[in-house]
């Protein structure tokens, strides 16, 4: 029995499953930071569910000791929402890649976000499809050369994940760099603590297939949001997300707000109608008498 009498350490969250990422992959840093954040929060292993889609990054749940749900490509968010709604007492953290989240899965983001679904969503953004061995992703830079775009992708604008979530009313939106595990662990921790939907975009380079958005590139370009950034101001947050200074990638918490969450709204509704687990079904039958 896992009784949390002694505090859990980061390593206690690690499963025995062999990690399959390429040596040097940014996702190792994310895994470590996540374990650290879990340990700092002392998340109960049996009450936590790590959900993911499909991709290199989406393998992460196997490497944790918590419950997990390795779902389908692009579907981690509605699965995560289903789990949380199915049992609101669980801590549900959703993991995935940029393609999983913003290409095939992009249609789910607006709704999970605007409902302020009580989830934490952590995207390992490597600006490429890793698992399928190198294709352009929605966050790849315009003109990106990859296996199916040998002459450069004809895209004019890339998806900005932060702006994506901000636009739909995200209540916690942050970015960090897997090369900075301390900051990453801290932000993931705060994201989990946040009430409602929280989003963390982690720059997590794919050294195997992305020779542009490399660790070295980001090491030099990441910069903390300026001290005077007001993360209570949505338009400022959008501006910072969409227009960082040339060559810079801001990290930190872009936006934070407090709004009723989906679970709160549903609980309030159920309360209003006098929800009762033992409600007599005969009342429904009676309502159908002629």
């Amino acid at each position: 029995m896992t009784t949390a009498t002694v505090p859990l350490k980061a390593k206690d969250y690690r499963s025995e499953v062999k990690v399959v990422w390429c040596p040097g992959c940014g996702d190792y840093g994310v895994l470590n930071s996540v374990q650290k954040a879990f340990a700092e929060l002392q998340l109960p292993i049996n009450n936590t569910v790590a959900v993911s889609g499909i991709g290199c990054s989406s393998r992460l749940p196997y490497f944790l000791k918590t419950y997990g749900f390795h779902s389908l490509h692009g579907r981690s968010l509605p699965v995560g929402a289903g789990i949380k709604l199915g049992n609101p007492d669980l801590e549900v953290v959703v993991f995935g890649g940029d393609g999983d989240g913003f290409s095939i899965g992009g249609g789910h983001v607006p709704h999970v976000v605007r409902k302020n679904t009580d989830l934490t969503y952590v995207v390992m953004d490597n600006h490429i499809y890793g698992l399928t061995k190198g294709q352009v992703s929605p966050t790849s830079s315009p003109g990106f050369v990859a296996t199916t775009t040998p002459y450069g992708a004809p895209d004019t604008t890339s998806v900005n994940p932060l702006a994506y979530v901000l636009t739909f009313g995200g209540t916690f939106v942050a970015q960090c760099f897997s090369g900075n595990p301390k900051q990453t662990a801290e932000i993931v921790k705060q994201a989990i603590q946040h009430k409602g939907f929280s989003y963390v975009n982690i720059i997590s380079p794919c050294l195997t297939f992305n020779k542009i958005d490399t660790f070295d590139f980001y090491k030099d370009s990441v910069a903390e949001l300026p001290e005077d950034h007001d993360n209570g101001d949505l338009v400022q947050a959008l501006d910072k997300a969409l227009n960082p200074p040339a060559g810079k990638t801001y990290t930190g918490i872009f936006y934070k707000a407090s709004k009723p969450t989906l679970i709160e709204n549903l609980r309030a509704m159920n309360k209003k109608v006098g929800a009762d687990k033992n409600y007599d079904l005969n009342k429904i039958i009676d309502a159908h008498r002629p």
Partner: protein
Amino acid sequence: MSDLIIRIGGEGGEGIISSGDMVAQAAARSGLNILTFKTFPAEIRGGYAMYQIRFSTDEIKSEGSGFDVMCAFNQEALDKNRSALKPGTVLVYDYPGGDIKEEVNIDGVTCYNLPMSQIAKKELEMYRAKNMVALGALSELFDISSESVRDTIHSKFGKKGEKVVGINLNAIEAGAKYVRENHKKTDPFKMGKAERADKDVIIISGNNAAGLGALIAGCRFLSCYPITPATEVAIFMSKYLPKLDGTLVQAEDEIASIANVIGAAFAGQKAMTSTSGPGLSLMQEFLGYASMAEIPCVVVDVQRGGPSTGLPTKHEQSDLFMAAHGGHGDAPRIVLSPENVPDVIDIMVQAFNLAEKYQVPVLVLTDGSLGNRTESIQAPDPNSYEIIDRKRYAPNGDGPYKRYELNESGISAMSHPGDADGAYIATGLEHFETSAPGYTPELHVSMSDKRFRKLENIEDELPPIEVQGDGEADLGLISWGSTLGTVRESVDMAIAAGMKVKALHPKLVWPVPVKAITEFASGCKKILVPEINKQGQLAEIIRSKTDLHLIQYNVYGGLPITPDELFEKIKEVI
């Protein structure tokens, strides 16, 4: 008289549906059985809408063949039904002052004019009351208890206050009065009151029955995306789930719906979604996931005319191929098919029970006609059902939890997040017993076998399949879903005509109940499979599993087969 069919036709939005509902309610109140049949226009406003009510002192098996009484609200309704106005039938039609410009005379048809528009507009000064005028006239003409009609008005409009009740009662009376003063009844149709064998009656639609069955089974989670003709299931559930402290989600699309459902089921809920063909097409990838990760869930598919957007408000049984064979790879599923409204309730309970017991997705295929129709049925007793819950994991100190343990039954114990020491990863990848991914040939073979082994004896699980007639038959009928009602009735006709005919009613349509079908077939010289689709989908899946020669009778005009049509076919092939 023990059986009467009244059809009301007019433009969508003219109150056809609500007046039909009232007739049905009133008749049920006065002890009659009823079964209704509706067709909606695919247009948003306007277009031909039809509501047909069959009344009987006996059990009603199907919509019937044609009608005895047609009530035409407009010219289009008259035109569409003129060919069905056979000698002996009755026509009630809006004239003069309505959309129909000429008096109608049809040989052998009793035609009663009724200036319903005019009475509503001029006398009642409320055009919307037209349908109530018609209702009053119909109850007067065919002796539908006026007391029951008034009671129905009270119970339906009572909440809206005395004034509304009064207006409606006036309209009823105006219709009845017109008939009393202007017509001498010459037709034989008369309902009267009746003593039902089972006093404890409710009126409920197939779609609402699906919701009710789910609630009885313990379902407390539904996520769906609206789609005709399935939306009503969710509307029903949206009223009651919150009262039961359950959850209803209207998701952004069908993929999210089934994802929500599977997530909630993983978390421990009995969960379902309701949809129609286009939505089910979108769910195929996730249904394969549920097979692979062994997550119990239920999908109700209220079939409509296909393919593609097709005939969204019409009746068809053409999603069976997809239900059985829809996704990629080899994935076990269960497909059930209820025959009528009470059966929908039972089958929904069975669907959840089987999903839970075998940890597979279960699809329930109803259809537009069954979903929309209402029936007066014996009120079910929610506590009388056996309810099965999934086999749960209990740590036994035997080492780490094996979510996908290989054992004889193929059924492994399932933990829920929150359970101590039960952590595992639900996964769509091939996996070891622990749930960790693995891809060796031996593993894939043993896990595939496990997944299919669960369903090896599934056919024994379901209540014995009903058979009509006995002894050797010259013709056996096999059908599915709501077509069974038609089969029952036409088999009665055939037997009454001295033919040796019987019928098999599988409710489990996939995996094909091979034993029962083979045994049934061994007692039949020929076998006829009537169904509402082009390809003969049931016939083909039966053939794929047996050596039977099947005569297909594929009807695909967007309407159910009538007992008369099927009887003709029986005579033809026997």
